[in-house]
């Protein structure tokens, strides 16, 4: 019953129909920017904000296929604390002693050629070709000293890159530090929910819970073009009330993101709403294909908090992670983007070495992560003979992984992290 606004209609309603249709997203973005041109710049404590003083002359970077082939960082979050020990398995006898029921059997694990000391969880089989092609790095014993075992404090540390309270995320600070010219809300996109690592002082990012439901519909009997144009217009002039102003500023960036990403056809209400790594990374690949100046993509899936029934729960999650990453990488390669995309997994903590009686593990400290990019090997170590409070000791500081990511994006790395951390990969371009 609802009329779905598709991309073409958007371009039409943006006015100057034919010219807009000819130049695609750039024209639409330009019109958006004209609409909000002249609005004051605001900095609002605690709210994601944007600079709205944009000019239509600088929208060329948004033209599909014409933008600079910038490096892209993709962060794949495993929310809830993935068990690193059963992900990148340390091959020493202690592992199976310490995990009497949860340990993977020797026959189950997947060997990594050239790596004598570690094996992969069997559900990660789709990642083996990346290892064989020198594109997969495992980082183990990774954490932030002092991060704690609480979901919230550990997440805060991983998001901010600091153990002291901090309102911005490490990538949010990078967005602020490298802001150049008009704000592009598609520069940083989060798929699958909120992304505190993108929280910035001044720069806006686009947060999409469910790409499949990301579209606009207008009611029958209404004037779609007029209503959407009017919706855009409610964004200016900006109110002096900072909360209202933040709600206003969300509108142009939403319309711009829908123009680029929004789906055309209706999704029925009975379609399962759950997104997973495969679906979210598919959207991420589409975004990179569009080449609209996206530099950072964050993909998040919950469910790794395996206090019970870990075997089957973790297996499903890792299988989906590996399938999603493998098909994502294949698509990047097919479309010629693989060389400019670095992928990293994160998770707020690893889990306790000792299993509990519920077939699960409780919150721990150091965990294991993967980097997909121009490198291969295992970094870090798992010292099961010298546990700290029952946890794997931290051997690699998470900020070293962040430093590597920030170098990939072009820095300024040490300024953003507040200190010079070792880099993990040495043969980055």
């Amino acid at each position, binding site marked *: 019953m609802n009329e779905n606004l598709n991309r073409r209609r958007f371009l039409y309603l943006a006015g100057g129909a034919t010219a807009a249709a000819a130049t695609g997203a750039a024209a639409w973005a330009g019109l958006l920017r004209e609409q909000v041109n002249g609005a004051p710049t605001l900095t609002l404590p605690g709210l994601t904000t944007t600079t709205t003083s944009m000019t239509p002359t600088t929208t060329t970077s948004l033209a599909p296929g014409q933008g600079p082939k910038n490096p892209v960082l993709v962060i794949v979050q495993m929310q809830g604390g993935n068990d690193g020990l059963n992900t990148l398995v340390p091959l020493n006898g202690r592992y199976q002693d310490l995990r009497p029921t949860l340990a993977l059997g020797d026959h189950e694990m997947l060997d990594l050629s050239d790596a004598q000391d570690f094996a992969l969880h069997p559900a990660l089989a789709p990642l083996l070709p990346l290892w064989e092609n020198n594109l997969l790095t495992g980082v183990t014993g990774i954490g932030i000293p002092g991060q704690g075992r609480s979901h919230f404090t550990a997440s805060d540390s991983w998001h901010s890159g600091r153990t002291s309270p901090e309102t911005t995320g490490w990538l949010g600070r990078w967005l602020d530090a490298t802001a150049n010219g008009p704000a592009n809300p598609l520069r940083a996109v989060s798929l699958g929910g909120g992304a505190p690592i993108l929280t910035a002082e001044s720069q806006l990012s686009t947060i999409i819970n469910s790409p499949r439901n990301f579209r606009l519909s207008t009611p029958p009997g209404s004037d779609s073009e007029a209503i959407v144009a009017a919706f855009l217009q409610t964004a200016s002039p900006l109110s002096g009330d900072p*909360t209202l102003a933040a709600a206003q500023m969300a509108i142009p960036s939403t319309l711009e993101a829908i123009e680029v990403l929004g789906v055309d056809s209706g999704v029925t209400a009975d379609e399962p709403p759950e997104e997973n790594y495969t679906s979210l990374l598919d959207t991420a690949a589409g975004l990179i294909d569009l080449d609209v100046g996206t530099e950072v993509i964050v993909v998040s899936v919950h469910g790794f908090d395996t206090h019970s029934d870990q075997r089957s729960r973790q297996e499903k999650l890792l299988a989906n992670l590996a399938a999603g990453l493998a098909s994502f990488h294949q698509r990047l390669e097919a479309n010629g983007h693989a060389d400019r995309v670095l992928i990293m997994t994160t998770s707020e903590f690893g889990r306790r070495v000792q299993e509990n009686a519920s077939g699960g593990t409780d919150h721990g400290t150091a965990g294991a992560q993967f980097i997909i990019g121009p490198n291969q090997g295992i970094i870090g170590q798992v010292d099961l003979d010298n546990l700290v409070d029952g946890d794997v000791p931290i051997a690699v500081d998470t900020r070293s992984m962040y430093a590597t990511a920030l170098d990939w994006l072009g820095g300024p790395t040490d300024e953003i992290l507040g200190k010079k951390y070792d880099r993990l990969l040495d043969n980055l371009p």
Partner: protein
Amino acid sequence: MVTSDKIASDLAWLTQRLGYGLTPDEQSQLEGIRPATLLARWVDPESHGLVIPPDPFEGLSEPIPLSLKDEELANQRQMISEQYLEAWLNELLTTADPLLEWMTFFWHDHFAVTKTAVGDPLTMANHISLLRQHARGNFGDLLRAVTVDPAMLIFLDGSLSVGEQPNENFGRELMEVYSIGVEHYTEADVAAVASALTGWEIPEGDTGAAVFSAWRHDDTPRTLLGVSGVHDVETSLDVILGHPALPGFIAGKLAKAILGNDFDVNQVPEFAEVFARHDLEISPLITVIAQAGLDKTNRSSLVRHPVSWLINALKTTGAQLSFDDQSHFLRTSNMLPGQPPHVGGFPAPKDYLSASCTAVRFTAAGKIAHLTPRDSLVWAAATSGDWDALATLLGCSAGFSDALLFTLRELWVNVPIRKHGISCLTLALASPDLLMV
């Protein structure tokens, strides 16, 4: 002398911050009532001769037969779960006791139990009923009841936690999220409370009470938060409920929810003192916080979350949006009642400014405008271009912003007369103004 503007603004603030808005009829019934009187009635309806509505879940469904398996069981669960959700949404919309529903939702966000983990819809519904039962009651009673509530025992693995290898999931969140905050306990306290809370299980197929099995329990006396001799639920909760950080932790969380951007951390000790002095009774705490809000002259706005936006839009317009459309809107906004996304509860208000939420709100606004009765006051205001009346009816007591007024006027001029109502009402409902509370 209190001006009538201040009274109107206070009434609007109270009904929007401790409830989810008012129908035009309810608005007119408030004329002449003082804000303090309304607050007293809402906090303690019975002593003002008002009847507390029955639990909307009461008698709604029979337990699911144990014989059902797999697909049949899943279908049955899905169907019953939707019945409860529909009854809940209907209660939010029509309740005569708005604060009871608001506080029930506050505790739902606080404890964040999700039906995704619980599975059985009756167990989940009983959990919400328990929150409703204690919503304005005593926090100690609430926390003790929640600790051995089957839904919580499933959600945070308490029912799997046994003496020799306790599961820490609930013990940690009990202190960190539910009572005293992360800075007030140690890892040793987590281990101690986890051991003391072992032994509870849920008989298979029973949606009633959890039972205690001594053989699954570790009864060794331990030291929790500096107090020795803790060995079971009762002694653990005695220590936690007596901890000096608890009143401030709970008072601070409730104050943030009610006062939003006007929350002042310096007021927390005062709120906490009232809460502690009343033996953790929740009603006096609500009163002192709400009164602090009423005492302010220049209040700041707060982002209205999707449940509040939806219920306010439906109440003020009278639109009969289908249950499927309501639940679809809430699910895609990441705020489906009964399914908080993680143990921290629903997202913070500002997260609802995301691109996703902005898009689904726009679409829902159009559906609600389409279904708004053509003989309603809201429709009359939208078609005639009476923006002051429209703002008041929709719950914006101070009127619309300049940006919205300008846009509405222009839209009204630009669209044909027969499209005035649908276009202007859609725009007003979708606007940033309606997202402010």
